């Protein structure tokens, strides 16, 4: 959220989950050909309450409970968007994308290209990512890089209530398939959210903390861990700039590279497994475009190479946090 935008907010505070609801509601009000479809999005209001009240307001024609059929659900999104609707599709957990990856990778992402531009798919997909709730290996993943690697779809990962609402509206107005990956641990997070509609541009990162001596590039909830780390580090005299990437496809290379050129040090933090995660892509871009500005290798923090463990003590070690970020920054700078 830019400073200018912040001024308009006038202190209206919502939780992340309520911001999601509000974003979806604005879309439904604005676009008569939009609807929400997914498992238990209707009467139940979504497993996280993220659609609560919408069924009562918009009725069962527009808030559609589906069978437990992810291939069908995403197919519904693809087919209906090709035929004139602007569907909002809920894939309950990003872990369940495995069930509908074909509909995503081979149909949704490629149809326009294969048709030589002959079809437009204005479909928005919402799904929950992230670990930290003792939901174990099949309900805690962060698989965003699968989607970012896929020409034809866009992928945003809002970290704040403001961005959650705005991203949903922007995604729904976009004429392309857009994934809005929401973080389930952030559902209770509070933040300023304006009434009415506003957009959060897809493909631009945001500098959420200005700094001069180290750049932390963070994805989704890790933004908050990075900000916390920055506070701790500032006491040690390290002036950290924190960038919320917000969108991983398209990716805002410029904002990141410009920051690195200023600070000469970088660290990329995400919750997904480090190996093969989006962090590698970001580091590769940084070293390519800011090679001569780097005083040290660009670091990466992601989850270790294992599935997400159930036991809270293990999960706590598993998910990156502020302490780990602080340690890594200190290590890079040779601080003790």
């Amino acid at each position, binding site marked *: 959220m830019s400073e200018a935008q912040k001024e308009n907010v006038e202190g209206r505070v919502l939780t992340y989950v309520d911001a999601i609801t509000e974003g979806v509601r604005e879309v439904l009000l604005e676009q008569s050909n939009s609807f929400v479809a997914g498992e238990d999005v209707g009467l139940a209001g979504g497993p996280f309450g993220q659609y609560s009240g919408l069924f009562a307001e918009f009725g069962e024609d527009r808030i559609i409970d589906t069978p437990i*059929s992810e291939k069908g659900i995403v197919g519904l999104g693809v087919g209906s968007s090709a035929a004139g609707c602007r569907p909002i599709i809920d894939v309950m957990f990003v872990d369940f994308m495995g069930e509908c990856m074909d509909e995503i990778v081979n149909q949704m992402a490629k149809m326009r290209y294969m048709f030589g531009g002959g079809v437009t798919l204005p479909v928005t997909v919402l799904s929950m990512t992230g670990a930290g709730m003792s939901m174990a290996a099949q309900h805690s993943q962060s698989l965003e890089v699968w989607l970012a690697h896929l020409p034809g779809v866009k992928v945003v990962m809002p970290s704040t209530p403001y961005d959650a609402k705005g991203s949903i509206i922007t995604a729904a107005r976009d004429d392309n398939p857009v994934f809005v990956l929401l973080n389930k641990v952030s559902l209770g997070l509070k933040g300023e959210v304006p009434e009415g509609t506003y957009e959060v541009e897809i493909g631009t990162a945001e500098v959420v903390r200005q700094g001069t001596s180290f750049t932390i590039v963070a994805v989704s909830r890790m933004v908050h861990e990075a900000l916390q780390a920055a506070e701790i580090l500032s006491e040690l005299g390290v002036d950290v700039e924190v960038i919320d990437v917000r969108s991983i496809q398209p990716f805002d290379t410029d904002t990141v590279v410009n920051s690195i050129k200023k600070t000469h040090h970088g660290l990329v933090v995400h919750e997904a497994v480090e190996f093969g995660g989006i962090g590698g892509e970001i580091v590769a871009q940084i070293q390519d475009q800011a090679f001569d500005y780097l005083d040290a290798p660009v670091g990466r923090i992601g989850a270790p190479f294992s599935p997400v463990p159930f036991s809270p003590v293990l999960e706590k070690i598993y998910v990156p946090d502020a302490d780990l970020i602080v340690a890594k920054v200190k290590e890079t700078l040779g601080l003790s």
Partner: protein
Amino acid sequence: MPKQPTKKVLQELHLTMVRIRCFEDTAGRLMEEAKIPGALHLYVGEEAIASGVMQNLSNEDQITSTHRGHGHLVAKGGDFSKMYAELYGRSTGYCRGKGGSMHVSNMELGMLGANGIVGGGPPIAMGAAFANKFLKTKKVAVAFFGDGASNEGSFHEAVNMAALYKLPCIFVCENNGYGEYTPQAKHQTIVDVADRAGGYGIPGVVVDGMDVIAVYEAAREAIDRARKGAGPTLLECKTYRFYDHVGVRGMGMTYRTDEELEKWKKRDPIQSFEAELIKLGVMTQKQIDKVYSKVNDLVEGGVQFAEDSPFPEPSELLEDVYCVKGA
């Protein structure tokens, strides 16, 4: 008893079948001559299905097709020039050369694409039908798919949802007895794919897919039902492909007997229909011959158009990945 189709309808059914046959015969030859790149899955032998079903649809209605998709697009009104150009990978093709045989499509004709993924079509057709109902149009969506595809999970999920929401969606199984080289008995225990309809509480209908009138009538009933809001039908058409899974002679595998092929060829949907047309006095042999020569002219013209067309420019590679606002 349903009323006999009009003469006009009978002639149109015939024309569509001939159009498909001639298009495919030439396409197959061109592939085997390596003039068309990639792999073609030809529809020869199965013409009665696309022709009979599509006779009941307008351009507004949508279909999803399969890897064996030329016949569907031809029957939906596809232009030979743009189709051949697409198979040739030229920029004048329906997909600007980016799709080829397995993805040939045209939204203006309601053709939501051939699909290289077996079982890829049904969820998309179901989605289109959902939009049709949501937007309160009177359009229907038809999903074509093979016997092999009926074992994909996507089929199951799509039919269940279409039934649940009573969508204007028709599932047309082109049961040609094989999924690639695997006979039906080696990929499912049932003989009639239509038996699966019961699991979704919708009608399952079996029809002779070599009899274009039978297909036309059965499809009409299913489509009328769907348009009236009574929900989907699973319509199975028993058929056979006269060529190999890929191309004409394919890879020379011996998974079918010559006898079996000959037996089915005796039931050639076009030849038997022509005999019928002559018997009924709807067309003379001369008129029939004229149909072929006209269609073959179109084929020739289409091929010529394709061969004369330019390939896409390198700059086109990165176009059409996204819809660019205002572009």
